[in-house]
């Protein structure tokens, strides 16, 4: 099982953000997390990602307990994350952003980097080629040398996903990747999501508000409300659960 979240609780002082959340992501599974604002969706990703340290419970990644592992080591363990607002490095180009994503796969240090010729140059060449594969996958050709701050918002979010994918993760966390996109950009994004799902067969945990999109694409849906899982299962089943309708979907 790539990811298992066991009885996870996160408290900020008197506020309980997550309360005994259980969750698992299978091999190559695309799991969507939905829920009203403040339900704890991003908090859950922050726990898995290592940004927050949970109050109690366990997070197991491929058999390795990563509950108390620092953020950068969690990336090393194989978790890639696309942030809610892309969080690209604004002063760097798309290529540079993606190359930062390759950080863990590279070796160049201060001395070999300063010398450049030899090992560092070879590595730059190899990784630049690998990046070209990602640019190709996400069809970012025209944006290679554009500074991230100058990108359209939709492209920024796409680069955010591409950057998380650049580190060759075993589990990909997507935090509302389609929020704020236009209809066309959303459809475009859905296509990339399906390609990651079917071609790369990557396990994904995907926070999303667009129920139509979730119902069409996700293998399973987890519904969070006030920090608790109130429904879980295939899209058709979850959409009919009374608790989910009451807390999130609403009635016509």
């Amino acid at each position, binding site marked *: 099982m790539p990811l298992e979240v066991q009885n996870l609780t996160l408290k900020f002082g008197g506020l309980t953000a997550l309360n005994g959340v259980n969750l698992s992501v299978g091999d190559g599974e695309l799991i969507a997390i939905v829920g009203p604002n403040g339900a704890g969706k991003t908090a859950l990703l922050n726990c898995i990602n290592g*940004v927050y340290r949970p109050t109690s419970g366990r997070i197991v990644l491929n058999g390795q307990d990563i509950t108390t592992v620092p953020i950068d080591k969690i*990336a090393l363990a194989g978790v890639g994350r696309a942030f809610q607002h892309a969080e690209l490095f604004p002063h760097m180009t798309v290529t540079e952003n993606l190359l930062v994503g390759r950080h863990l796969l590279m070796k160049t240090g*201060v001395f070999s980097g300063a010398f450049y010729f030899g090992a560092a140059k070879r590595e730059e060449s190899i990784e630049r080629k690998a990046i070209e594969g990602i640019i190709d996958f996400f069809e970012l050709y025209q944006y290679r040398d554009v500074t991230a701050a100058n990108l359209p918002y939709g492209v920024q979010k796409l680069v955010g996903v591409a950057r998380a994918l650049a580190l060759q993760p075993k589990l990909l966390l997507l935090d509302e990747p389609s929020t704020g996109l236009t209809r066309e950009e959303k459809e475009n994004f859905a296509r990339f999501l399906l390609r990651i799902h079917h071609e790369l067969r990557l396990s994904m945990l995907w926070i999303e508000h667009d129920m139509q999109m979730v119902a069409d694409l996700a293998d399973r849906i987890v519904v969070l409300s006030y920090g608790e899982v109130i429904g879980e299962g295939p899209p058709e089943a979850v959409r009919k659960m009374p608790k989910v309708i009451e807390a999130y979907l609403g009635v016509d």
Partner: protein
Amino acid sequence: MSRTGYNLRTNYLESNEVIRRPYQKVLVAMVLAVAVLLPAATSTFFVHLLNLCFLSAIGALGLMLLTGFCGQISLGHAAFLAVGAFTTVILTVHVGAPFVVVIPAAAVTGAVLGFIIGLPSLRFRGVYLAIITLAMHYTVIFLATSYQANFAKSASAGITIPDPSIGPLVIKGEYTWYYFSLVLLTLVTIWCVNLIRTRPGRAWMAIRDRDIAAEALGINLTRYKLMAFMVSSTLASVSGSLLAYYSNVVTVETYTIDLAVIYVAMIIVGGMGSILGALMGAIFMTLLPFGIDGLFSYLPREWRYGSTVFGVQVGAVGICIILFLLIEPKGLAEIWRRIETYFDRWPFRYRPLDTTRH
């Protein structure tokens, strides 16, 4: 973003080239050629000024890596220079160590102090970090002052150190120093450029831009921040040691908080996040007081009191920082980029596209 005509690339490493366009290569070659021939055409005093520019540019590059690329503010750069200078004093006066030993020793001392000062950067940022580096400055200056008072007797005017020598070659006189510092500065610049275009430089810029995202991609903040501090302080310390050798005299009064501010001014005036900016800023800020001095010689005699000139020199530094921050926050490097763009598009006069990095 460069124009399409220059974007035609045939291999992956071309996107990593520093000097991309043919005319830029010619320009760099010309600048180097002029730099090599310049001493033959100017006065000894001007060569002396250029030496000061080149040697302080090494320190400015160090600060640029730390502040301009890794985003860590430091007001302690004068202290790092002092560390280099006093390492030189201690090793030459007490031990009699040769130049080839002193410079690496200064580098190591600088790196160690940089490591220690880097530690608070893991917990503090912005203004708080600036205050901590300021505290470090006063600590180092206190130690240097007590050293100068207790161990270097009759040193109220400073401690003299001998001319450096590499084997049989004694580096003495403005002209020898000119070529020596030119070669050193070129080497250091190439090192810095290489660092910026490879993994460590990208990690620094990532930390500067979005530290949480950088961490989520596996960049060890502790390691890279400390590394930035160490590289920066090493360069500053070496620069301090070289400046000490060049002036043959070391006194703690040189390393005031003013000097630290001047180094910060160098990278602001030059343009944050630009290696070229560090060089331009160092040259600009080093020449500025002498330029003001020169201007004063045109004024009537009764206006030319030393204190007046000094006051104007200090004030000009502040005014420069304010003017650049207000009018051109990206500094001289950005002005140069705009000049390039103008000629790039000539004879068409489209407004420059707003592709500036902000």
